[in-house]
């Protein structure tokens, strides 16, 4: 048994033990999709409105994936009625066989992630670094929290993303592009990186003379087109396209989710609140905003009191603008060795400035960034901070006391393993990147490795958690329940902002 398989098997044992934990409404959503896709004809998948809680709003390839997942359940018999019942039920009251079946389906489809991680680690890294990257990927606490407690299928989707990246790094552009097409036909949140993929493939794959270039362009177009045709074709045939698109892009939602994802807009909202408060005190007449930003309900447009209103178009333009440095770099000099960094940066931009972003979306760049975290000490430092912030920002997903020790322990173990791994990786004088590293970094204690600024920031994170768990209930009781959550959002947003700026600087630096 190789190390990757061993790590995966250990993680699978932990995943099995996580089966009885809390699951969010996403559990019921996915169960309902299983029932929906197996009970209804394809033409009605996207138009069915029998369950208002969970309309199918993922692209068709994911719907097919759910249909396939329902097959063994129908073949096995057992409790198909409970698993594949269309009527909605509460996720906490799911019968044990249903629970085990769905939880295990996540654990088993994680094999795609294992495959991609092992492939990447073995082809790209020297043996000494392999182990560390595998630990970062396969034992990612954020992925465990989102997939195996909260309940989603990110492991399988991120596996496809990693596969695509590994193809691109090896120069197999066609396969890379194809994998990415499959990915966006499975979850359209990954669409953010499409401009980058387009520019990169256009410049890197479609090269040569004009004849060769156009031949390659057509090949790629045909391949990607085929994936899209396979995904959307049946719905086009049934005249469901309009319905599908309206489900996929529900712009009726607010700018921010109920719990603010730690991104740029947190500062924008806070600034607006502060300004309106100050102006009110100064005697200006300011119309009070109608809806609360923490609502995040469908059709509930967020209103700002002082600052200009934000529309989906503005966020779209802002994302493209933020992404432009890496688009330009990819256009000028498309290099396979930079593609992972660029893709991660593109996802970071989407996370920082996008419309109605979920905190879970930070996985889209923390997972690919794990691959380059061992390149040099600076990357390691950045990753150490980013991965802790990203995982911590997911803590509010699990609010029950029962899961509290689990999430804390997961993050603590991850931090210690990162600490052990990075400090033993960089204890030698010169790292492979050629950068001179601090010789005494390992013996210097934590400060030598992450620096003063990072240490203070992480201690602050601890302070935020202590405030939310102990001091806030002690001082305010049950009043102002949103304050600790807001604090987490703002504090993590600061860390995310730092990560975004840092990544931007790295991209500008290396040409």
């Amino acid at each position, binding site marked *: 048994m*190789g190390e990757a398989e061993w790590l995966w098997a250990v993680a699978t044992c932990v995943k099995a*033990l996580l089966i009885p934990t809390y699951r969010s409404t996403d559990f019921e959503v996915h169960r309902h999709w299983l029932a929906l896709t197996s009970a209804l004809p394809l033409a009605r998948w996207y138009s069915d409105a029998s369950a208002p809680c969970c309309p199918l709003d993922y692209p068709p390839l994911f719907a097919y994936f759910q249909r396939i997942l329902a097959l063994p359940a129908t073949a096995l018999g057992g409790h198909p009625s409970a698993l594949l019942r269309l009527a909605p039920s509460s996720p906490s009251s799911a019968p044990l066989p249903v629970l085990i079946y769905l939880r295990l389906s996540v654990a088993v489809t994680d094999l795609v992630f294992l495959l991609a991680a092992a492939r990447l680690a073995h082809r790209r890294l020297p043996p000494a670094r392999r182990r560390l990257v595998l630990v970062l990927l396969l034992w990612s606490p954020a992925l465990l929290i989102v997939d195996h407690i909260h309940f989603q299928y990110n492991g399988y989707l991120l596996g496809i993303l990693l596969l695509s990246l590994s193809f691109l790094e090896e120069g197999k552009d066609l396969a890379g592009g194809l994998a990415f097409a499959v990915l966006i036909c499975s979850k359209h949140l990954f669409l953010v990186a499409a401009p980058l993929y387009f520019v990169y493939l256009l410049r890197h794959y479609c090269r040569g003379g004009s004849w060769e270039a156009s031949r390659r362009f057509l090949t790629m177009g045909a391949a990607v087109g085929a994936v899209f045709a396979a995904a959307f074709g049946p719905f086009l045939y049934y005249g469901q396209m309009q319905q599908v698109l309206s489900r996929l892009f529900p712009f009726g939602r607010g700018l921010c989710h109920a719990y603010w994802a730690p991104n740029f807009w947190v500062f924008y909202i806070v600034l607006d609140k502060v300004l309106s408060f100050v102006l009110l005190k100064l005697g200006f007449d300011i119309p009070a905003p109608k809806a609360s930003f923490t609502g995040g309900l469908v059709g509930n447009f967020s209103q700002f009191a002082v600052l200009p209103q934000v529309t989906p178009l503005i966020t779209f333009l802002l994302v493209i603008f933020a992404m432009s440095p890496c688009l330009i770099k990819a256009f000028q000099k498309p290099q396979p060795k930079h593609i992972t960094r660029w893709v991660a940066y593109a996802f970071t931009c989407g996370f920082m400035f996008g419309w109605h972003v979920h905190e879970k979306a930070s996985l889209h760049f923390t997972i690919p960034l794990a691959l380059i975290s061992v390149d040099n000490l600076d990357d390691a430092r950045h990753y150490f901070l980013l991965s802790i912030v990203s995982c911590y920002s997911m803590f509010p997903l699990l609010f029950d006391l029962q899961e509290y020790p689990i999430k804390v322990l997961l993050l603590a173990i991850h931090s210690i393993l990162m*600490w052990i791994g990075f400090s033993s990786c960089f204890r030698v004088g010169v790292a492979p990147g050629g950068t001179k590293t601090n010789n005494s970094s390992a013996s210097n204690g934590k400060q030598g490795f992450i620096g003063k600024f990072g240490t203070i920031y992480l201690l602050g994170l601890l302070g935020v958690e202590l405030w939310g768990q102990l001091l806030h209930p002690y001082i305010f009781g049950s009043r102002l329940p949103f304050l600790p959550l807001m604090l987490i959002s703002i504090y993590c947003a600061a860390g995310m902002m730092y990560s975004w700026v840092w990544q931007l600087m790295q991209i500008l630096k290396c040409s």
Partner: protein
Amino acid sequence: MAKTRARRPPATAFVAAEEELQPGAALFPWSTMRLTPPTAAAVALFALLVRVLVSLGSYSGQGTPPMYGDYEAQRHWMEITLHTPAAEWYRNTTANGLAYWGLDYPPLTAYQSLAHALLINASLPQSLALSSSRGFESHQSKLLMRWTVLSSDLLVFFPAAIYFVWVYFQRNVGGDGEERSAPWFLAMILLNPSLILVDHGHFQYNCISLGFTLGAIAAVLSRNDFAASALFSLAINHKQMSLYFAPAFFSHLLGKCLRRKNPIFEVMKLGFVVIGTFALVWWPYLYSIDSVMEVLNRLAPFERGIFEDYVANFWCSTSVVIKWKRIFTIHSMKFLSLITTILAFLPSFVRQLKAPSDQGFLYSLLNNSFSFYLFSYQVHEKSILLPLLPASLLALQEPLLFGWLMHCALLSMYPLLCRDRLLLQYGAVLSLFGLIFFPPHGNHVTKADKLSTKEKALIALGLSCSIVLHLVYLCFQPPKKYPFLIEALIMFFCFSQFVAFTIYTNIKQWMLLDCSSWAVRVKKDL
């Protein structure tokens, strides 16, 4: 730590060690030999995580009135200790009906219940209300109860395990010229699946008494005999079952005292420590002989019979052929089991008395506890945890034996854990143990290619037997005439293995070379 490193021989023919020399290789707990504070923390936190995850499962007697199970017993003791004075804890009163889970562990367990009761009472008093809370079950109270076990484990067993591993390498107990991975050793002690399942699944507080025992063992190895006597007295005062280890401690400490200048004075000093600790713990009952006897009677429930359920010991296994319960009265049965137990541990006892050594001490702990498990009165399945503790301490010397014993111990508790609906946790923790037992790149101690074909075949045979037993118990409905047929089969299998172990480890203890004995070591040190 630096001292430990200096004493350790250089590790060479070992894959992980080679990688350690590679620049930039990550020194994760499974790929390094050294136990540094971060590695120890990683192992300990992971062990804690596994405990937290197992504690999500159901507990014994969940939702089964009127008697429930061990969980309700512990909750009831909290209720009693919280609301009645200490003098009445072991007495049948209107508030404390002894027929309903009367306290039958020594006073330290009662104090521990009181401490936990005070904590729980602060946030959920209705779960401990006198009388009215019988059978109280709720999500929150389960969580709080689980956290009391987790915190006890963290406060007692974890420090003891780390202390033991540290002492083990500092004193070089395993002998020279051996390549050993300290983090792996710590993981073997902390990730004991049987202990985790019984404490955090079934619901008990074995971690406290076993933790005190482990601390006492470490103290013996570090030549701190007073601390050892005090800690072991605490262990006995938490669960009287810790007496399984008493002959080993007694013979080892006595053997060492006899080699000193003033043997009688030395023995008296240790005796005072033991008596002092006992007096402290028993203080509320020392006002009269009657009250002491009242407690003692509660601790020795002879009326419950020689064995319970299907425990893989001598009396239960042979009762299929010889109906012990019919042939002998309770009184003669008591006597018979006492004699056989003494006979069983006598060889190991004599050996330690004559030539006390560190390694011999660990073996004698195993042999003593096994002789009690196999032959003493009123043993139940969970008592296998006691021999498992010293077995895990021998994990570096007898890796395969330890792994196999762990597996048999789990199998012997399999029907019990199935009844507690902990099958999922059982499977996950067993696989986890197997994975960590065989880390990637192969630990030298568990390398399969060292074995001969014969041994491999034997292991394969044993494993397939166990897999068949596991599956048959789950899927096969026993004939109506013999409803406990499969339990009995599991019991026979485990009993045969346990007997083989005891014979092997007894021989092994006798074969240990005299040069490693304590007397010689002292001369060297001088």
